[in-house]
């Protein structure tokens, strides 16, 4: 009998331990705060961006709260690592939304944005943005509760093409993309667009996602001998090797990239071979001391060392979310997907505090603005190579 009792006690103890280990069993108290949820890739192939995004978002939250919050309510960031895997992202989404009252959400990939879209539409309570600039998402009908804090990939290409068309009409182009969803996204549409703009895409090169050695691709490039080579679907590798081999071969082509391969510190590490690399960037860099950028000043005070491009992306995304929430609350409306999106789309000629050099509007799901920067190896910095380019719809 004694043993039975002891066993029961043990069972109770184990049960209690279990309950405390599984917070799902306990209810959460609601606080008067605005929570931004986040599925953020702090590990995995996209971690370099995720870490910076998290920093940017939490800094925005911090600055906003210091300034009194949004309509009197504090902002809070609730996020978890996803390792850039769709199922983990969904798990994080489900977990965070059950534990917090979430109306704003940051998602990490195109795959996740597409996966969760049905759920967003079903709930209708959340406005989501994220690290993906997938052109498919830039469709307010299909993705009514999502947006992106910058141009989509096709728009990024469009900005590059616009720059090229102006700098060298009729130039010969080569597109180089990785064989991933990310890499393939803008290619088809952009080939068409280039043709319309009188530019000549003489070759398209696709590299396997895990390419290390690019010698054969460089040989192909040499045959095509373009004036401009546009990379898409990479972060850094194998671009430096591509460029240095091309230089060794005496190719005159100019190399360009899109947002996620525009981080300054990555290129600073590459050094000389990176010289002259250009690309489209929707935001200013951390070190930009333009007078019309008070926010950058604040950021530099908060974080004395360089912050990656993902930081700006995260910061601006959080800012647009905050602005949407603010406008909704100030209009006396309840926070939900519809009201938030409407508030977001009401943003017109909005001053980002200098993160973007021109006032922006969010007519649909994207912010089609960008600027061409070029890397200067001597100064180890990306320098503006054009004015801000706003695409007209």
């Amino acid at each position, binding site marked *: 009998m004694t043993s039975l009792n002891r066993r029961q006690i043990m069972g109770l103890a184990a049960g209690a331990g279990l309950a405390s280990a599984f917070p799902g069993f306990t209810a959460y108290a609601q606080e008067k705060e605005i929570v931004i949820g986040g599925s953020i890739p702090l590990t995995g192939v996209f971690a370099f961006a995720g870490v910076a995004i998290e920093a940017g978002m939490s800094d925005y939250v911090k600055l906003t709260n210091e300034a009194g919050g949004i309509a009197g309510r504090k902002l809070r960031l609730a996020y978890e*690592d996803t390792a850039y895997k769709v199922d983990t992202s969904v*798990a994080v989404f489900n977990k965070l939304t059950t534990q917090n009252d979430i109306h704003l959400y940051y998602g990490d990939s195109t795959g996740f944005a597409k996966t969760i879209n049905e*759920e967003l539409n079903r709930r209708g309570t959340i406005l989501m943005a994220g690290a993906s600039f997938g052109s498919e998402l830039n469709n307010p009908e299909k993705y009514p509760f999502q947006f992106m804090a910058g141009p989509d990939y096709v728009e990024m290409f469009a900005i590059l093409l616009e720059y090229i068309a102006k700098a060298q009409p009729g130039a010969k182009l080569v597109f180089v993309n990785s064989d991933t*969803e990310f890499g393939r996204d803008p290619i088809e549409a952009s080939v068409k667009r280039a043709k319309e703009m009188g530019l000549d895409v003489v070759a398209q090169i696709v590299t396997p996602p895990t390419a290390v050695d690019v010698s054969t691709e460089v040989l192909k490039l040499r045959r095509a001998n373009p004036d401009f080579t546009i990379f898409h679907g990479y972060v850094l590798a194998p671009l430096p090797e591509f460029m240095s081999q091309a230089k060794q071969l005496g190719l005159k082509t100019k190399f360009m990239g899109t947002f996620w391969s525009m981080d300054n510190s990555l290129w600073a590490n590459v050094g000389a071979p990176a010289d002259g690399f250009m690309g489209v960037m929707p935001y200013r860099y951390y070190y930009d001391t333009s007078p019309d950028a008070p926010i950058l000043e604040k950021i530099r005070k908060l974080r004395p060392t360089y912050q990656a491009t993902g930081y700006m992306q995260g910061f601006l995304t959080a800012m647009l979310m905050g602005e949407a929430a603010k406008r909704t609350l100030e209009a006396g409306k309840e926070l939900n997907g519809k009201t938030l999106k409407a508030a977001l789309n009401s943003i017109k000629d909005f001053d980002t505090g200098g993160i973007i050099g021109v006032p922006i509007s969010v007519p649909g799901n994207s912010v089609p603005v960008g600027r061409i920067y070029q890397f200067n190896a001597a100064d180890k910095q990306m320098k503006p190579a054009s004015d801000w380019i706003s695409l007209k719809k």
Partner: protein
Amino acid sequence: MRIATAKETYIADEGLLVTSTQRAWMGVLLAMLVLAPFVLNQYWLYLACLVAINVASATGLNILTGFTGLVSLGQAAFMAVGAYTVAFFEGQVGTPFLLNILAAGLVSALVGVLVGIPSLRVKGLYLAIATIAASVILHFVFTHWVSVTGGVRGINVAPARLFGLELASPFALYFVIVPITCLMVLGAANLFRTRIGRAFIAIRDRDISAEVLGIPLLKYKLMSFALSSFYAGVAGGMWAYFFRVVTPESFPFATSIFFLAAVIVGGLGTIIGSVLGAAFMTLVPELLKYVVDWLAPIFPNAGAALSPVRTIVFGALIILFLVFEPHGLAEMVRRARRFFHLWPFRT
């Protein structure tokens, strides 16, 4: 389960649950499974469904690798075939939910048979690599057969509908996914009470002598591949309805590794091992998140800085189990059962 009668003593002896204690525990477990959705919140229901899907797939892989001895690193690809099948049938054909799930299993089984064909000649680790090759080729098909798979963009899947109800939330799907998985696990347990299960084990232990004992090797190896990928296909099909989008990146190679790890951690060649292993490996990363949460006050940047730890823990779990508990969780359960059986008289 029928209670044995005097006439059918061997039936009792060969039942899945031999003692009344076992039957009682199984009853408790089933009751818990039925009650769970009314107690758990959405997040834990989400995890419960994910665990169930993974259990189904891990059970399939254990049939192939643990019981038949054919190492496969292609389980994720078979799941993908199932998921695409569901997406295709749901979107383009419009057949009903359960039929689509069945079709997912069957199409996957067919692909499994194709992939299994080299297994007669190619052995051991060479075969494992051949299954990697098969998954690479399948991935290529998913990316390039745009008219069926939607290419890199993949396919969105409409919510499952059953008896006019829309099954969109984890709560609703739980009532389909968990029973299907339970049936599949039961099926696997039954299998190893019959000649087919024995044939699989014989092939694992010594394939050439199995042939002389009357077991046609190719037929049974292919059957094992078919069954294993049927399980994967059904799991993939449920996955498709659960996540409602299928892309080529949905089932990366790492998923195959995950399932193999789950089966090893759970216990190769045991049914309960597949269940425990899949549940354990699915839940560990979640539990780690809580650890990180608890540490957050001490290390302000714990979330970001400690997250590679999860990668390390995944690897370390595999290593530790292999070195210290090579027969996996199943063996630990067995030991615990023996302990409680004798407790408190001996330890």
